C-alpha cells in the first residue's frame, strides 16, 4: 500500500510558515535593492560612466542634505503636493460625476459620446499653451494640467464600473421599492462599482505625479521645476534627489491608498 499525503490547505498550515515566507520576501527584496545600488555605485567609480552623467549613490545624501538646509526641498515638495492634491481632487470628483452620469443615463452618454471622442486623445501636455493663456504661469495652470489627466482615467473607470453593475442587484432595489435614480445610485450602483472606481483612482494617483512634472516644466514652482533647473545646470545628483523624492512620495501615497482600498473592499472574498 502506498501512503498518499494531501498538501495542506491554507488553514492547515502551521502559523510559522507565513512569517518565514514574509522574512524571506523582505530579505530577497533587500538583497535585490543592495545589488542595484552596488552596481550603480560601481559604474561611475570604475570609470565606465562619466560621473557627470550618472552620479554615484554615495554623493546623493550630501546633495539631499544641502537641498534641505537651503529650504528649497521643503518649498518644492509642498508646492508640488499642493498642485498634486488639488489637481487630483478636482479631476477625480469631475471624472467620477461624469463617469457615473454617463454610466447611469443613456441620454447623457449619447449626448457626450462625440465630445469625449474629440477631447479624449489630446495629451495633457498639449493643453499647456491653453493653461498658460487661461491661468498664466500659476498654480491653477498646473492644477488644470494635472486634473485633465486624472479626469479621463477616473471618468472611464467609473463609467465602465457603473455600466458593469449586475442587473440582478438593481432588480433587488426595484423589488424592495427603491426605484428613484438617487436610491439606485447610493444603494446599489456606487457600492457595486466601488472596486472598479478604486482601481481607476489608484491609476490616477500615479498618473498625477507624472503630470506634476509636466505641468511644472513651464515654470510653475515645485519638484518638476527644481528638477529642470538642476538638469540645466548639470547638477545630476540633484535630479536624482528629486527623482527619489517623487518615488518616495508616490510610494507612501500608494501604500496608504492600498490600505484604505483594502478596508473599503473588505467585503470581497
Amino acid at each position, binding site marked *: 500500500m502506498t501512503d498518499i499525503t494531501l498538501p495542506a490547505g491554507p488553514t492547515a498550515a502551521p502559523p510559522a510558515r507565513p512569517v518565514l515566507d514574509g522574512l524571506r520576501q523582505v530579505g530577497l527584496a533587500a538583497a535585490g535593492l543592495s545589488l542595484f545600488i552596488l552596481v550603480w555605485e560601481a559604474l561611475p567609480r570604475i570609470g565606465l560612466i562619466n560621473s557627470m552623467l550618472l552620479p554615484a549613490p554615495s554623493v546623493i545624501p550630501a546633495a539631499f542634505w544641502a537641498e534641505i538646509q537651503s529650504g528649497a526641498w521643503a518649498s518644492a515638495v509642498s508646492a508640488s503636493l499642493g498642485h498634486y492634491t488639488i489637481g487630483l481632487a478636482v479631476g477625480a470628483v469631475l471624472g467620477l460625476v461624469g463617469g457615473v452620469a454617463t454610466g447611469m443615463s443613456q441620454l447623457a452618454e449619447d449626448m457626450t459620446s462625440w465630445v469625449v471622442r474629440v477631447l479624449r486623445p489630446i495629451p495633457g501636455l498639449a493643453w499647456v499653451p491653453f493653461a498658460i493663456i487661461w491661468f498664466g504661469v500659476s498654480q491653477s495652470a498646473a492644477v488644470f494640467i494635472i486634473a485633465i489627466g486624472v479626469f479621463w482615467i477616473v471618468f472611464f473607470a467609473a463609467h465602465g464600473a457603473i455600466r458593469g453593475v449586475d442587473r*440582478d*442587484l438593481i*432588480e*433587488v432595489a*426595484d*423589488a*424592495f*421599492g*427603491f426605484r428613484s435614480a438617487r*436610491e439606485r445610485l447610493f*444603494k*446599489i450602483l456606487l*457600492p*457595486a462599482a*466601488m472596486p472598479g472606481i478604486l482601481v481607476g483612482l489608484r491609476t490616477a494617483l500615479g498618473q498625477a505625479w507624472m503630470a506634476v512634472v509636466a505641468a511644472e516644466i513651464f515654470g510653475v514652482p515645485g519638484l518638476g521645476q527644481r528638477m529642470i533647473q538642476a538638469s540645466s545646470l548639470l547638477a545630476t545628483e540633484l535630479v536624482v534627489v528629486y527623482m527619489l523624492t517623487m518615488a518616495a512620495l508616490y510610494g507612501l501615497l500608494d501604500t496608504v491608498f492600498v490600505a484604505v482600498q483594502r478596508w473599503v473592499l*473588505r*467585503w*470581497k*472574498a
Partner: protein
Amino acid sequence: MGAAMESVIDIEGLSLTFERDGQRNEVLRGLDLSVPRGAFIAIVGSSGVGKSTLLRVLIGLARASSGTVRIAPRPGQRQPLAFVFQDSRLLPWRPVIENVAFGLEGSGLTRTERRQKAHEALEIVGLAHLAERWPHQLSGGQRQRVSLARALAVEPEVLLMDEPFSALDAITREALQDELVRIWQVTGKTVLFVTHDIEEATYLADRVVVLAGSPGRVVADQIVDAPRPRRRSQSQEPDLVAGIRQHISGELLLDGTGI
C-alpha cells in the same frame, strides 16, 4: 363574505407580451388568479411557461400588457409584497444584518430600529448568530435563509418566492421547506411559491395552480387537503401528483402540435 375568503391579490385577464426589435413573444394571456389572505399557493408549470414573469408582474419588475392586478394590503402596510429570488441576490458589500435591514430603509425607522427588526427576522430563520458575517462567508443554504429573512423583515402581507430552494442540495432543501411551512404557520403570511417540482408543490401548498400552454394560462387549480404536519416519505396524494403532471405534460403535447 367571510374573512377567510377575502383575497389579497386578484388577477384578472392578465396578458403580457414581450416585444423587442419587432419580435413579439406572448408569454401570458388572459390569466385569472385570486389569492386568499393567508393561503399557501404553489405555482407549477414547465420551463418558460411564464411563472417567473407572473411573479415579476406582481412585484413590479415587469409590466402587464393588459388585464388588472389588484393588491389589497392591510391598512398602514408599507410594503405588501416581498420577493425571494432563486439566487439569493444578497448585496455583497453589506454584512448579513444590513442585508436583512435593506428593505426597511426609507421606512422612517431609525437605524437601531431597523437593525432590531432585522435581528428578529434573522432569528426567525435561525441565523441571528451570523448577523455580522459577509455574504461570501455563508453557505448557499444560509444565503437563501438570509434572503428569506430580508423579505420577512419588511413584514409583507405576501411572500413571492421564485424557485427559492431549487439551487440547494436535497437535505438543505427539505430543511428549508419545513422551516418555510413553520414560518408561514406562525406569521400567517400569504405565500405564492413558484416551483417546477410537483412533489415540493404538493408537500408545501394548500393549493397548486398549474400554468401551461403558450401563451401561458391557468389550466388547473387543485386543492391539497392533506393534513399538516405532512410526511414526505410516501406521497400521500399520488393521484393529485399524477393529475398535475398530466396537466403540465398534456398541454406540452398540445404545444408540440402547434395548437
